[in-house]
């Protein structure tokens, strides 16, 4: 309960941001940070809790984004319905990919590479089909009304994103105190031992995929509505995949607050670098890559491991 209180208090404080921050620039930085915290947590459900490292999480992001955009542009489906469908498509594609890969026993690095390959396949498909706008991309018609999930005020976008992110963090809070969460950690730490005491590892991994894909899909819906434009590279390219895993790993995988910490630290670093170096192309990513290497080398359990120095626990869960 203490953690739930802390979580809600944090999000309540974050909800005040648009009332305090008046500059569009800084509000945008806050949106990017919360966005990272969302996709990092989505990745964390699968990677941190269920132990399956994905290198292609953009796949589910892209599916959610294209779902809301294509349905809206070609079939006139309202984006609020598209939001539900985008999340459902994200989850559905994740389950399909999981069903194929886990059925055939892919683990570890092979799972990572296959998710990457699936994202590439979708990128090429999106590049070649007319109803996704192929290489030119797809544009959602500007109509800044809340009923069309478009807002004149950047703060409203921020609140929409924050609500999605809260849903994701509440889900993980629930995982921490549920049978499903306990089973995910068991599968992560030792699949055979889990099976021996009655855990259906395949089903558990599929459920992790579904939840992870669902929140990536939601993130995709937000992205599409925020920028009203998508192309195959944005949707399925490596950027979102890398950001999702980076945020979770830097913050601490398998922890509730890790991805949030990771998102804040990474965006603080990248803004700091902008100030120090000016806007050099690539400078951001050099920092991100360096942080990733250093974290894996020296702090493989992420920043969250700093907050409980006495314990050697990977899971980092409070009872």
């Amino acid at each position, binding site marked *: 309960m203490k953690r739930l209180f802390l979580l809600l208090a944090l999000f309540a404080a974050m909800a005040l941001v648009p009332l305090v921050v008046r500059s569009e620039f800084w509000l945008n930085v806050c949106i990017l940070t919360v966005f990272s915290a969302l996709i990092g947590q989505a990745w964390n459900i699968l990677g941190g809790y269920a132990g399956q490292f994905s290198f292609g999480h953009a796949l589910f992001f892209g599916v959610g984004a294209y779902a809301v955009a294509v349905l809206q542009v070609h079939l006139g489906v309202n984006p609020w319905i598209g939001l539900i469908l985008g999340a459902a498509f994200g989850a559905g594609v994740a389950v399909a990919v999981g069903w194929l890969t886990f059925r*055939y026993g892919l683990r570890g690095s*092979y799972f990572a*590479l296959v998710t990457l390959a699936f994202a590439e*396949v979708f990128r090429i498909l999106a590049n070649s089909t007319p109803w996704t706008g192929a290489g030119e991309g797809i544009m959602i018609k500007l109509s800044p009304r809340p009923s069309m999930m478009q807002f004149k005020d950047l703060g409203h976008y921020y609140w929409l994103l924050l609500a999605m992110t809260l849903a994701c963090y509440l889900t993980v809070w629930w995982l921490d105190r549920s049978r499903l969460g306990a089973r995910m950690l068991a599968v992560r730490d030792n699949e055979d031992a889990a099976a021996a005491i009655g855990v259906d590892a395949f089903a558990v991994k599929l459920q992790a995929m579904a939840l992870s894909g669902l929140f990536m899909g939601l993130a995709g819906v937000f992205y599409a509505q925020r920028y009203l434009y998508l192309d195959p590279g944005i949707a399925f390219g490596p950027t979102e995949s890398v950001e999702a895993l980076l945020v979770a790993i830097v913050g601490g995988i398998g922890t509730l607050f890790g991805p949030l910490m990771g998102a804040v630290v990474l965006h603080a670093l990248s803004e700091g670098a902008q100030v120090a170096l000016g806007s050099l192309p*690539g*400078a951001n*990513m050099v920092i991100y890559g*360096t942080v990733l290497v250093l974290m894996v*080398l020296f702090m493989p359990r992420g920043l969250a491991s700093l907050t409980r120095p006495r314990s050697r626990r990977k899971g980092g869960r409070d009872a």
Partner: protein
Amino acid sequence: MLNPTILWPAILNGVTTGALYALIALGLTLIYGVLHIINFAHGALLMVALYIVYFLFRLFGLAPYLSLAIVPPVMFALGYALQRGVIGRAGHGRDENILLVTLGLSIVIENLALMLFSSDTQTVETAYGFSTVSVLGAFIPVPKAVAFVGAVVTALALWAFMSRTDLGRAIRAVAKERKGARLVGIDVDHVYAMSFGIGVGVLGIAACLLMPSYYVTPQVGHGFILIAFTIVVLGGMGSFLGALIGGIVIGVVEAVGGLMLGESLGQIGIFAIFILILLFRPQGLLGHRA
């Protein structure tokens, strides 16, 4: 629809391109076979090698083929240092950590290149760059023919090195039985770094052969990395012959697929092969199930 006069040049183009892919995959498969790690930075390291070839040409007028004397040793040293200093320390008992650290390295390397060299496409212009040779009625550019021969020679040389030299035998011993190798006094960390160095050194050869018919940008590695992984799993992880055949198969699939489905959709064949092989035959087409 598939007229042989169109199909044959496509196949020939695929075979020569595939040999280059194979050359890139050779280093990857060696590293996997010995260290059992997946080097995600392979594409980025190829890009580094291509830039070295490019700058040797730009600054000193050194022809790409003459760079063969310089670039492979430099890349070898880089690989050795990376394995000893960074990658070898990152495992913490999980192979995903290696994947992550090599991903991190590739991000750093690519974006450093972007900062230093900008995203402009750079090429090397040579007298022979546009000349062609005729093979059974189809024409292929001379650099591609040279690259094909170079790839085959490199694969053979690697194979001979692994079976005929002391270091090669030590590498194979470590690949097979790490603990046992340590017990008989082999310096396993050194052998790991040597293997990694050789794998990256082969990229130096690939870069010298590739540059006359290709180009370099900071992102050039992206196009190769998944293709190289596909070849490695297709040929069987750790198999040189498998990589050579796998590379040529992939080159032909890409060329013929592109002819039939169009350039962008043609690439799907490669990823489909990658996914299907990993799902159904992870030991590769030529390998045996352990």
